């Protein structure tokens, strides 16, 4: 098991494709996306009931064992979140390598 950082990013569903591309560019080793999330934050309720996903969120989980990449991702994600809303959390974890 290898120590790594676990990033968790909540962002609007319409931006999911853009965030995935940015994670690729920034060198994330991989990511997992859970769609159709709802939630509440500073920008009010997002019920996830819109045909267009305008008020729907999604959750990205990124495990990364390279601190430089983690920093790059955090810096690259911040402006997206600042513009459209969302949350980015970073925590410690152990990555079970196979």
């Amino acid at each position: 098991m290898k120590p790594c950082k676990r990033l968790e990013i909540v962002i609007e569903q319409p931006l999911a494709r853009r965030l995935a591309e940015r994670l690729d560019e920034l060198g994330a080793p991989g990511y997992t996306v859970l769609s159709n999330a709802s939630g509440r934050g500073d920008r009010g309720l997002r019920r996830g009931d819109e045909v267009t996903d305008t008020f729907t969120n999604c959750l990205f989980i990124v495990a990364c064992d390279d601190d430089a990449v983690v920093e790059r991702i955090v810096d690259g994600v911040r402006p997206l979140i600042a513009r459209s809303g969302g949350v980015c959390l970073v925590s410690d974890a152990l990555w079970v390598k196979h």
Partner: protein
Amino acid sequence: MDAGFLSNLSSPPLLFFFLGAAAAAVRSDLEIPAPVAKFLSLYLLFAIGFKGGVALSKGDLDGQALSGLGAALVLACLVPLYAFALLKRRLGAADAAALAATYGSISAVTFVTATSYLDSSGVAWGGHLVAAMALMESPAIIIGILLYRLYGHADGATGERINWGELLREACLNGSVFLIVGSMVIGWITGERGMTVLSPFIGDLFIGMLCLFLLDMGIVAARRLRDLRRGQIGVARGTGSAFLLAFAVGLPLANALVALALARLLGLSEGDALLLVVLGASASYIAVPAALRLALPEANPSIYLPLSLAVTFPFNLLVGIPLYHELVRRVVLT
């Protein structure tokens, strides 16, 4: 007017809209699962596009049709301009631009409801109006973004360069625009032959699917209205919501009058004139919000979405369509 008005009010699709609104109002847990609502919306776009294409294939595209298309395009470019002018001072540039895009574009479901209103009233309408609808979806989005770029700087618009390719893609290749246009082209290619094999699916089921979709719209619209009232989805600080509500009813009426004038000028038929007016008066809550979240995230969706979905949409369904029909009868057909 009365008969039409009442017949519209008591049509099953509209009643299901109210049923949905009632469910949300009393906080019932009635809910259409999101993938199903998306399916219903895809179905409606598919069906209306295909029908329009088939109608077009029957040689509908004469001079009058072309002038109708021209009028639609003029309308789609004009409305966002005066809407923005009206709103810029009251809201920020971003919200003003977003509302301009929303009201300059159209609502396919309002259009669809108007066509079934015409069908049930026995008034003919031309398939090229579906093309007009498709044509009117995107321009307002592009104009809205442009207006924001031109006027938004003082307002703190980020200097970020526009990625024009991406903007065009998001405006014109938006899923719902793409499906209507694509289905229209396929309907046009396969013509009557295609209609024969597809009519049980897109013809017979249409009203039932519309009922279920409007049930969902009713639920969502009533929720948005409540969120709006509770300030849960943060209305613009500076602007009273009274102004916004007046706007969401007044602008469609103004747009209807402009469309009416165009229709009279071009001497459109009763059905075509009504549909043009409905297109002008309707505001988008599917294609435009989806595009704006990508192209103009600075604008607050809690303003433009509830206004178009929870105010303008039911207003058009309920009062608008029969009212515009009456106006068309008095103004255009004389």
